[in-house]
């Protein structure tokens, strides 16, 4: 029923982009989409948006209050002071070192003329007064996570950011806690322990605040933990619900509302029966990526990670609900639908990537889409009301583990010669476990209809080994050596034409993967960083290089933009190499072991000579 109502709104408003966004329509949609933590001045109207493309959640126009800027994860800003005509004049206005030689993922928030950044372990929250960004900190909050957490996090001691709501900055600490800090005073309001770091449960993702819920998930899929997402009460931090991503329906919060689209995902307690014995208890399916929210359908969306143990022969079955996209009610956590992208994963293709929510014309009919550029090398387009797979096309050309997807069954057409098994090594699987892209989030511009995907081209040799579960130690059973993929350049910015399911253009980066998030703006500028220390701006229509700036360390963070107290537009980004793909640049790694850091060192040998670690925040303006 909601779908037909939506169609009606579109029919009424469509015709031209201008007509679509005239006041009557905009008012109607804004009312329908109002969210309690929508940023001040947030807008759903995008001047110059293509006809038939509709924004689901209010877009950032001055502040940046949630990790992606908006709840729908477009990472698109309506600001246009900085545009294709003047971005060449962008200048550095402030910098700040964090003093931490580890991966700086995520990005800043801006609320009430204050910028907030979370550091990697020890997860300090730094607040800058934007009225005086070169002056002293407004405050620093230190949560003092357990030092032991550093050795339990699979892929560097990273943190992917915070969310703002109800006067609080909320984020997670590496040792499995969630903290809420008063945004004005820097005082801790509440702290909720959720994960057991003794057994390897960490939290690295950026929680999303949806109304009065904080949505957060765990990490530790390499340690044999059991994945979950949780909903906390924003006021008190109290745990309201926890939905495991493996196990019996009652644990997964699967009830009468659960209506998965495909037969393969229907049935009772699949989270138990798709595993051998009690393997689901160590079955991974963690959630260390991004959460999105559709205010109209009142559903959150997220994807789950790899099944545990990595060695697929030790866990026969579909291994639900690993590598799965879930739609849930944010208040109760109850599942609405689930779509398992890849049953019985044998490559560590976590699919915790961003789910970008867009309403657009799809093959002649307006549909509510969920666009998921995946580690598997495919861009998945789903109907986010039902979970139906509408399209799955390769964005990373060498992808060879599957030929494609059967839209009738929702299943991948796996190439048996690329399956991995215990006791043998499978060669030249593309992409590598790090995927055609990783957690680094893409950005969608309603003005171009393009999804800007930070991508990488690596392949791998994967040997299966029997693994023993010993709590608090890695649970892998794999010897992996990654290597650069075929073709020039490991890094790409792919401008993906969502409607036509193909690349419009690609900027190739050499020699390293694109491992930073992307920002697009109404000024038709796309910002991203490279591991070789460049922060870049390109034309959103053509990919033409417009500006670049060399930072002190490789960029794996996410750029964002805001309006300062002086009314001017600013752009900010973290630099600081590390994370999984950047591990080779850290001093505690040896490049002569290609299997080091879960195999990534084989693909990244030499990164050290391009960048050393060390985190710095950079702020630019005209």
């Amino acid at each position, binding site marked *: 029923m909601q779908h037909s109502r939506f169609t009606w709104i579109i029919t009424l408003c469509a015709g031209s982009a201008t007509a679509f966004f005239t006041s009557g329509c905009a008012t109607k949609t804004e009312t329908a989409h109002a969210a309690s933590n929508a940023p001040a001045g947030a807008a759903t109207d995008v001047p110059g948006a293509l006809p038939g493309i509709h924004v689901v959640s209010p877009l950032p126009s001055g502040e940046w209050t949630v990790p992606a800027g908006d709840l729908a994860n477009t990472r698109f800003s309506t600001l246009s002071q900085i545009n294709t005509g003047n971005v060449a004049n962008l200048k550095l206005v402030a910098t700040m070192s964090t003093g931490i030689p580890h991966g700086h993922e995520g990005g800043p928030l801006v609320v009430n003329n204050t910028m907030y950044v979370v550091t990697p372990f020890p997860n300090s929250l730094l607040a800058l007064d934007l009225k005086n960004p070169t002056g002293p900190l407004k405050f620093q909050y230190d949560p003092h996570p357990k030092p032991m957490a*550093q050795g339990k996090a699979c892929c560097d001691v990273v943190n992917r950011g915070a969310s703002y709501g109800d006067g609080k900055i909320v984020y997670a600490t590496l040792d499995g806690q969630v903290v809420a800090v008063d945004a004005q005073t820097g005082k801790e309001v509440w702290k909720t322990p959720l994960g057991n770091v003794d057994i390897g449960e960490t939290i690295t993702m950026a929680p999303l605040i949806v109304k009065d819920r904080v949505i957060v998930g765990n990490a530790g899929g390499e340690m044999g933990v059991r994945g979950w997402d949780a909903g906390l009460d924003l006021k008190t931090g109290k745990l309201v619900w926890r939905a495991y991503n493996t196990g019996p329906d009652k644990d997964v919060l699967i009830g009468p509302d659960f209506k998965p689209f495909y037969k393969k995902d229907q049935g009772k307690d699949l989270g138990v029966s798709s595993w051998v014995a009690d393997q689901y208890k160590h079955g991974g399916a963690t959630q260390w990526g991004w959460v999105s929210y559709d205010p109209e359908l009142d559903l959150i969306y997220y994807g789950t990670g790899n099944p545990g143990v990595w060695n697929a022969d030790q866990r026969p079955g579909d291994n639900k609900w690993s590598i799965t996209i879930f739609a849930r009610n944010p208040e109760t956590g109850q599942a609405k639908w689930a779509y398992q992208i890849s049953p019985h994963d044998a490559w560590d293709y976590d699919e915790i990537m961003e789910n970008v929510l867009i309403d657009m014309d799809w093959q002649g009919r307006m549909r509510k889409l969920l666009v998921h550029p995946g580690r598997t090398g495919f861009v998945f387009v789903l109907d986010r009301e039902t979970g139906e797979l509408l399209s799955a096309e390769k964005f990373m050309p060498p992808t060879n583990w599957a030929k494609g997807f059967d839209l009738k069954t929702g299943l991948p057409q796996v190439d048996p010669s690329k399956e991995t098994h215990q006791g043998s090594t499978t060669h030249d699987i593309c992409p590598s476990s790090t995927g055609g892209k990783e957690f680094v989030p893409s950005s969608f511009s309603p003005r171009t209809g393009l999804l800007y995907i930070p991508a990488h081209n690596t392949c791998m040799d994967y040997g299966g080994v029997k693994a023993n579960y*010993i709590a608090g*130690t890695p649970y892998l059973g794999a010897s992996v050596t990654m290597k650069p993929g075929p073709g020039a350049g490991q890094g790409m910015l792919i401008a993906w034409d969502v409607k036509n399911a193909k690349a419009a253009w690609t900027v190739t980066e050499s020699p390293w993967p694109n491992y930073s998030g992307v920002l697009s703006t109404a000024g038709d500028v796309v910002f991203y960083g490279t591991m070789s220390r460049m922060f870049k701006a390109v034309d959103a229509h053509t990919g033409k290089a417009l500006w670049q700036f060399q930072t002190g360390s490789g960029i794996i963070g996410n750029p964002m933009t805001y309006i300062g107290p002086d009314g001017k537009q600013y752009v900010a980004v973290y630099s600081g190499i590390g994370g999984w793909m950047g591990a080779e640049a850290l001093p505690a790694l040896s490049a002569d*072991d290609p299997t080091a850091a879960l195999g990534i060192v*084989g693909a990244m040998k030499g990164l050290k000579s391009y960048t050393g670690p060390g985190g710095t925040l950079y702020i630019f303006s005209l």
Partner: protein
Amino acid sequence: MHERMLLSILLLIALCAAGCDRPPTETATDGAPPAVDIPVGPMPGPGQFPPSPQNPYTGNSVALSEGRQLFVNYNCYGCHGGHGGGGMGPSLRDATWIYGSSDAHVFSSIAEGRGQGMPAWGTKLPQDQIWKLVAYIKSMNTPNEPDAPVQK
């Protein structure tokens, strides 16, 4: 209890895998000296450190191979890299030794664990297995390293 039983079984399997089909002369676990407390930091004031125990398996190629197998069986490779190049934990094949490079220091790091996440394996493993792990780790990047990484 369940996990403890499981671990005991694993230990038996590991011991068996490591030693069952070896000539007895090469696998002698008797005579391995007991570990002594090895200070990690410098000693204050006058005096000398107690003599450091030596690894009975240094240069024993069979023990090195067993150490390599234990390194896999106990999931050491998951943190420290398939061939000790590092990852969640630091590299073991470079020249940096955070807690000391002597055999006894490496033994102590394995047995006692370290504060940034290294488990205290002395609570679970017999000493001779720890010494074999030490022997394997100290062989990395030397001609004696078993199953050395293939360079491309």
